[in-house]
């Protein structure tokens, strides 16, 4: 039996290659994701080993605001200089160096723009001289307060040389320094993992990077001879008390690497999610291929049954075939995945100046296990249904001339309706807030339900669609052909549906979000101009003095600013917003008091939105405690609760807190101009005032909303690129179906050629069939995607989705692209059809 299976497998190499390709692509994504994260993980291990190579023990202060990694890093606390002296006095310490270092030193390049990186930090620190790691290349270290040394990566990125003047943004607004030295690292490296570094003198670094004189961010300790890092760690911990974290170099390295790997695993999950979509679509393709194979082998299988083969043997023979394909596809997919993983890691390490030194290629066990598990499982599961169908072929079919007639679609349709209803229910539960898994499960089950209903839809939709092409005889024949086997047409179209439905769904949501943003902004924001920068771990800020000058511009009626930092409110980490002029701010956003007042009387006051107040059982007169990154705990009194707004939420606190913010500068500014005054003119003037704050820009209201929604476009592009894989697999499905159709209809093609059909007409006929299938799939995808998107938007009505909008142009583009996809998919089958040898096709069997 096994021998017969393998032989029949080999005889259909090409067909299986196509369905195998779908599995190969899916497996490639899965194993590629694992290889990528493994390679990057080990590369970062190496990076941190370099960074901590000179540290036996490190000392850091316990942060006052503990924030988990996911929210963008911790808010470090500072170590007073006295602690450094204590550490130096501990026996066994060979040397102890205080480091005043933090992310957020942004140098302005020669082109006047702030130099940015894609991920690596921009570190500002105190110059501690050359070490085993740091080597001066040119010039010297900074000795005066207006001098800096920069690492070679910074020099290259900013185009700076020794002797140049350079502006640097830190916790304080732009300051000008002279570059006196350029340094590199052991091994001739320009940077450590792409980080940009600027070294100041110690007092300057303390003031600009840590915001306080006489403090350090960490202390690096080297052990003397005969002292192990563990002994030294214990001794130092005892000497300086429980307010500080004392760790060995190894612990620090592990801690840093763990934090990073969490980020990588998030990345990994996204890639695997897309692999899941690809494999789901691949399942349709495999299911279809096996159905066709079983149909074509009906007589062969019936003969097997007639000769005494059992049902189990028939199922076994089909599943063995699937297993072998899955196995081969997994091996190929794994190999391709290793290539993709390494390639992506290389990109990650070299694009955007990251300069990460890659560790050697490694294939983690997870990559191998998941490749085989996923590849084989998906193939075998997809082949299960056709296998069962094959086992039901009666032995008598071996003797009958024609295959069993097309079974009615009733059962399938009822099943599809039930599955779709179940999917919709899950989806509804997921959307009403019962969790992301219910939501995803709902989407998946709905897709299967729609796919089951597709054969029923195929006949009428295809017949209507085909009218477009019926003006020519080949077109008409192509349309009739695509309606010939509704199951096959349906499943091929359904594969295309999945990818397009997801893209369309996301698109509907984002388009609605953009429209809602515009709508909300126009209704609830009275500010005409908005000053803002890119949000990030360290928010872009601008000089508060700018706002005083803005207020003096003729035509400006009102201004407001807001300050932001991460803090801990009643023990919970969250963003803290301070608003100096609450009355102006409330007017900017049409905030109205639900209780209490919306004007500060003095320090230590806050207002809160009504939803949060109700949720936390807070009311006017209550007191909350606020801990910022520095300073003592603040006791803040709630003086007002404001009614619900779609743009503003949470605490708005009085300006006395700002002094404890890491950056005591505004992050956002709002300007209202008098009616009749040109907004554009005022904008120009504000623009000029912001010349020394290059990280922020001023925009009018709709321009600002456009800036916000531009992020949606980036998101959409990414999703489109990743889902392109699913669509590529669907295209393979169309090629597969057409190739089989051409093969099955060789005789008909021969006849058509014999009675005078030209090659070009034959190709047109096949192309029309492909286009009808692909456009049908696209229409399904657009319909399902619109449904999913609309349901989501409706469910999020209370979360600011005021409008439902459809991206008509984009949807039309998708439809056009789908037609194009059909044409492309038809190329090879059409050529094969045109090359059919007339004589061979019609000669006796």
């Amino acid at each position, binding site marked *: 039996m096994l021998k017969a299976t393998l032989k029949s497998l080999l005889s259909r190499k090409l067909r299986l290659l196509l369905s195998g390709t779908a599995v190969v692509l899916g497996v490639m994504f899965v194993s590629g994701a694992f290889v990528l994260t493994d390679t990057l993980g080990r590369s970062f291990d190496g990076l941190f080993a370099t960074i901590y190579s000179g540290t036996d023990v490190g000392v850091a202060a316990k942060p006052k605001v503990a924030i988990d990694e996911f929210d963008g890093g911790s808010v470090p606390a500072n170590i007073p200089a006295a602690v450094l002296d204590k550490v130096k006095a501990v026996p066994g310490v060979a040397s102890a160096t205080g480091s005043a270092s933090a992310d957020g030193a942004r140098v302005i390049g020669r082109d006047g723009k702030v130099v940015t990186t894609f991920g690596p930090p921009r570190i500002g620190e105190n110059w501690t001289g050359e070490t085993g790691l740091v080597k001066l290349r040119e010039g010297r270290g900074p000795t005066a307060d207006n001098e800096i040394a920069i690492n070679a990566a910074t020099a290259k990125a900013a185009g700076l040389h020794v002797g140049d003047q350079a502006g640097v943004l830190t916790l304080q607004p732009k300051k000008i320094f002279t570059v006196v030295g350029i340094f590199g690292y052991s091994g001739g490296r320009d940077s450590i993992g792409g980080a940009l570094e600027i070294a100041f003198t110690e007092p300057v670094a303390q003031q600009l990077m840590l915001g306080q004189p006489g403090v350090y961010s960490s202390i690096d300790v080297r052990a003397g001879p005969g002292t192990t890092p563990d002994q030294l760690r214990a001794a130092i911990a005892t000497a300086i008390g429980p307010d500080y974290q004392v760790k060995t170099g190894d612990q620090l390295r592990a801690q840093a690497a763990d934090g990073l790997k969490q980020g990588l695993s998030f990345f990994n999950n996204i890639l695997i999610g897309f692999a899941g979509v690809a494999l789901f679509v691949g399942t349709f393709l495999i299911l279809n291929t096996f159905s066709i194979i079983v149909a074509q082998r009906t007589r062969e299988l019936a003969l097997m049954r007639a000769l005494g083969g059992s049902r189990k043997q028939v199922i076994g023979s089909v599943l063995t075939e699937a297993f072998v394909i899955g196995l081969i596809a997994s091996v190929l997919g794994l190999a391709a995945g290793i290539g993709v993983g390494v390639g992506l890691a290389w990109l990650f390490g070299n694009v955007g100046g990251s300069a990460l030194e890659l560790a050697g290629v490694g294939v983690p066990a997870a990559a191998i296990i998941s490749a085989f598990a996923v590849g084989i499982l998906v193939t075998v599961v997809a082949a299960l249904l056709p296998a069962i169908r094959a086992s039901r072929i009666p032995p008598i079919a071996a003797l009958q001339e024609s295959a069993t007639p097309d079974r009615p679609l009733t059962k399938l349709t009822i099943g599809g309706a039930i599955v779709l209803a179940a999917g919709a229910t899950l989806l509804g539960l997921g959307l009403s807030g019962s969790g992301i898994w219910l939501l995803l499960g709902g989407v998946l089950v709905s897709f299967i339900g729609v796919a089951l209903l597709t054969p029923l839809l195929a006949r009428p939709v295809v017949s209507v669609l085909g009218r477009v092409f019926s003006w020519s*005889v*080949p077109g008409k*024949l192509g349309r*009739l*052909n695509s*309606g*010939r086997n509704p199951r096959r047409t349906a499943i091929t179209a359904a594969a295309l549906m999945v990818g397009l439905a997801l893209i369309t769904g996301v698109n509907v949501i984002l388009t609605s979000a953009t429209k809602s943003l515009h709508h909300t902004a126009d209704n609830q924001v009275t500010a005409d101009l908005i000053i803002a920068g890119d949000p990030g771990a360290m928010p872009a800020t601008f000089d508060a003095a700018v706002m005083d000058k803005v207020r003096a511009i003729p035509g400006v009626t009102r201004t407001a600013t807001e300050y932001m930092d991460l803090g801990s409110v009643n023990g919970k980490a969250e963003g803290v917003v301070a608003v100096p002029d609450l009355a102006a701010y409330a007017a900017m956003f049409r905030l109205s008091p639900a209780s209490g007042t919306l004007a500060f009387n003095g320090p230590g006051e806050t207002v809160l939105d009504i939803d949060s107040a109700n949720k936390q059982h807070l009311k006017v007169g209550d007191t909350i405690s606020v801990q910022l990154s520095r300073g003592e705990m603040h006791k803040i009194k709630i003086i007002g609760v404001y009614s619900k707004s779609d743009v503003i939420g949470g605490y708005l606190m009085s300006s006395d807190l700002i002094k404890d913010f890491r950056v005591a500068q505004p992050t956002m500014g709002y300007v209202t101009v008098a009616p009749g005054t040109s907004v554009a003119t005022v904008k120009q003037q504000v623009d000029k005032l912001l010349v020394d704050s290059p990280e922020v820009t001023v925009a009018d209201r709709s321009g600002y909303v456009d800036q916000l929604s531009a992020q949606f476009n980036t998101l959409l592009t990414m999703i489109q690129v990743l889902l392109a894989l699913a669509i590529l697999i669907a295209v393979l499905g169309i090629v597969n179906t057409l190739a089989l159709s051409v093969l099955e209809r060789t*005789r*008909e093609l*021969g*006849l*058509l*050629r*014999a*009675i*005078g*059909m*030209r*090659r070009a*007409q034959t190709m047109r006929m096949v192309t029309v069939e492909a286009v009808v299938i692909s456009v049908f799939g696209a229409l399904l995808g657009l319909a399902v995607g619109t449904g999913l998107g609309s349901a989501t938007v409706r469910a999020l009505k209370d979360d600011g989705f005021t409008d439902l909008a459809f991206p008509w142009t984009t949807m039309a583009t998708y439809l056009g692209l789908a037609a194009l996809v059909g044409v492309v998919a038809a190329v090879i089958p059409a050529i094969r059809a045109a090359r059919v040898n*007339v*004589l061979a096709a*019609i*000669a*006796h*069997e």
Partner: protein
Amino acid sequence: MTLTVERTRTIAARAVDVWKTYGSGEAQVVALRGINVELERGQFTAIMGPSGSGKSTLMHALAGLDSVTRGQVFIGDTRLTGLSDGGLTTLRRTKVGFIFQQFNLLPTLTAEENILLPLAIAGRKPDRAWFDTVVDTVGLRDRLKHRPSQLSGGQQQRVACARALISRPDIIFADEPTGNLDSRAGADVLTFLRNSVVQHGQTIVMVTHDPVAASYADRVIFLADGHLVDELRAPTADAVLDRLKTIEV
């Protein structure tokens, strides 16, 4: 000169010293060995011979479905040897009709659409009067809206005959047209073919190995081992059978 013109006017198709070989070296098979034959216009010709005699190969060569190794093939004044695929397609559209043993109807089209298909493919308007004549001759008036799967074998073959006739080709090639039919349905088809020759002057060439089928023809030519060995005019089934026996011995 006058003689040549006269000849081409009365000859629908001819083969001049046609050789056909398949394969090469040891595996070489010679199917036709220098065949010279002229098929007259307005006549029903049957080609007979034992299996492997080359009768099908000869018909395929005459119809332009297969190339020849040596020699020349003409349909009317047109030389087929050397024509491109496009040229052959045009020829098939305008001058040739086919009837196959397997009927070869398109299952997606109705009987009427199948009959009109050659005209539709060529983009020609059907002549309604001729269509009615053809349909009535084959007796399919009440079956026009049926699909092939709803027709019997004999009815399907009559649709195929109508399809071959609809474009009024110079010549119709029928390859074992009764091979898949019972004798009653076969007789219907043969009578119909005979009538179209007598009533409409249609030229038909039929390959068959059934002496009864051959007896409907005006002329039977016999092939054996790639040679044209004999011919018979105004044949009867018995005469054909006798002649076949002498060839096969």
